[in-house]
């Protein structure tokens, strides 16, 4: 490259003199630093009178020569001399990387931190639940503090505007269940039981479970992101200062909305799934809709509807609670909002599935099979 920084060694009066040429700048420095560091001799002088330009990187390299080998810099322009002085005064021992232990201790530390975080998060969630209970108590004691408008507004975003996507998802899932079920049951000549399969699994499990996953992804994440950015912008602090408790004004309406709407959305999802299944039965098994509906009424017991409707508000509560909880945990920087939003969705879906397992065991043991 034109103007590449370079040097040659020359013996003058029994002294080693380094003659530098080219530009001593970051763009043209190349491997000059390595070559100087690996040098076996200790040059007495460095002549930079032929150097075209020096920037701080070049000055730094010259400064290191001076510092490490005691080399005298000659032929420097005023500008170069000033730069060398500048970098020399900025020469301090700086730790560039954060402290890191050995791989073993780092792994241990990570496991430890993960465990602490897991328990801390659980504890925090419980404390948040407690705080919400107090807020609910306060609102009961003082009903005028209930924010009806805020709740209705949430109804729209959580419920009405998600009808489309939940409907589409449910319809497709209904078709898939019926189709897969029909293929398997055909092997036993029991295709007609596809109706039992569709009716019972949607009412009991899938209607509510799939809706919960959709609501967690749609609304739980939105809650975490909204509250998180409000927290970052100090809006939450401003509310507290004015005397508006965030628990009552932000958290309660959201949790209430998901709790009340989950049963409705879950029931709606189950119905649309049955419709999807019915369509497939009609098209591919030749079961006409009226027969299908008749069979559904015979094979789906009322308890299946109760199972779904009892689980739904609990799931809704969990989704709203974790979304708001994670949102309120945001602190420091914008990256946290993303992390906490992810955490809200993961935690909500995880808790919903764990609870679903408990519910399944519970309902079976009380004889609702």
């Amino acid at each position, binding site marked *: 490259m034109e103007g590449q920084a370079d040097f040659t060694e020359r013996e003058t009066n029994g002294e080693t003199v380094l003659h530098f040429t080219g530009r001593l700048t970051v*763009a043209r420095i190349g491997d000059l630093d390595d070559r100087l560091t690996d040098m076996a001799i200790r040059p007495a002088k460095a002549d930079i009178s032929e150097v075209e330009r020096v920037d701080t990187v070049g000055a730094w390299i010259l400064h290191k020569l001076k510092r490490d080998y005691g080399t005298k810099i000659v032929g420097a322009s005023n500008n170069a001399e000033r730069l060398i002085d500048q970098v020399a005064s900025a020469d301090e021992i700086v730790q560039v990387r954060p402290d890191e232990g050995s791989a073993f201790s780092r792994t241990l530390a990570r496991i430890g931190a993960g465990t602490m975080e897991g328990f801390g998060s659980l504890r925090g969630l419980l404390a948040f639940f407690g705080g919400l209970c107090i807020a609910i108590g306060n609102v009961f004691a003082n009903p005028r503090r209930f924010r009806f408008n805020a709740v209705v507004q949430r109804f729209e975003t959580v419920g009405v505007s998600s009808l489309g996507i939940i409907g589409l998802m449910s319809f497709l899932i209904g078709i898939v269940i019926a189709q897969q079920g029909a293929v398997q049951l055909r092997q036993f000549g029991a295709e007609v039981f596809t109706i039992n399969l569709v009716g019972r699994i949607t009412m009991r499990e899938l209607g509510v479970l799939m809706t919960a996953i959709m609501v967690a992804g749609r609304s739980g994440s939105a809650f975490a992101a909204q509250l998180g950015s409000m927290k970052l912008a100090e809006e939450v602090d401003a509310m507290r200062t004015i005397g508006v408790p965030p628990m009552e004004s932000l958290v309660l309406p959201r949790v209430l909305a998901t709790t009340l709407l989950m049963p409705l959305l879950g029931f709606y999802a189950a119905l649309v799934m049955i419709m999807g299944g019915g369509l497939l039965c009609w098209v591919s098994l030749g079961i006409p809709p009226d027969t299908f509906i008749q069979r559904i009424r015979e094979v789906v017991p009322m308890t299946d509807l109760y199972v779904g409707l009892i689980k739904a508000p609990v799931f809704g509560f969990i989704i709203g609670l974790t979304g708001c909880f994670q949102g309120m945990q945001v602190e420091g920087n914008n990256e946290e909002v993303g992390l906490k939003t992810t955490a809200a969705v993961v935690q909500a879906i995880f808790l919903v599935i764990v609870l679903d397992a408990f519910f399944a065991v519970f309902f079976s043991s009380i004889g609702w099979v």
Partner: protein
Amino acid sequence: MSDETVITVRGLRNAFGEQVVHESLDLDLYRGEILGVVGGSGTGKSVLMRSIIGLQQPEEGEIEILGQNVAEANESEYLDLRRRWGVLFQNGALFSTLTVAENVQVPLREFYKDLDEELLDEIASYKIVMSGLPVEAAPKFPSELSGGMRKRAGIARALALDPPLLFLDEPTAGLDPIGAAAFDQLILDLKESLDLTVFLITHDLDTLYAICDRVAVLADKKVIADGTIDELLATDHPWIQEYFDGPRARAALHAKERN
């Protein structure tokens, strides 16, 4: 200061939809000076800076930086130009997932891939010390720093490539007076030692009095006046009079005279 211009803006027009921010705006920045750009809120100081550094496409007008017309520059010329300026954004705009030292190394790594790790660390170290940061700050993440330290880290990153031209967007906003004065001094020191030309947007009258060689006033969609503060005071534009002859300006002038 010389007559050689580093930035020349001619007939600049910027508009967002219906709202015109700049109309036939002219501006010169001379080599070796610190130019303070002032103007009321919403007069487009930041938009001016953004159009000069190419973040905002102007509707009309010519911008020439270091002898290169920005609009006519091809990709490689533009990239070449880009490494010859450093920018300090209002809140530092440090990359939050990188440590301070890594932030400083980002431009170096991007443009000079063959620099070895050891030298990169050394460069980051002296840049950080030069920017007046304590040595403990280097391995820290931006979220662990105070506002003033973040700005210093921002300057260290802006100066990573030894650019001859430095853009500063409200460098002292949000700093306490002592921190702001120290930051002014830092800018002045760096300008002297590194031979910088500085384009500085500010609201801080102390900064204007303490370090600016010239001040350009933005109002009515253009630069209505530029020159030293004394020259500006000689004009009779009401906004300039109010700005530089108000109680705060007089206090800043007193402060300067006392020093």
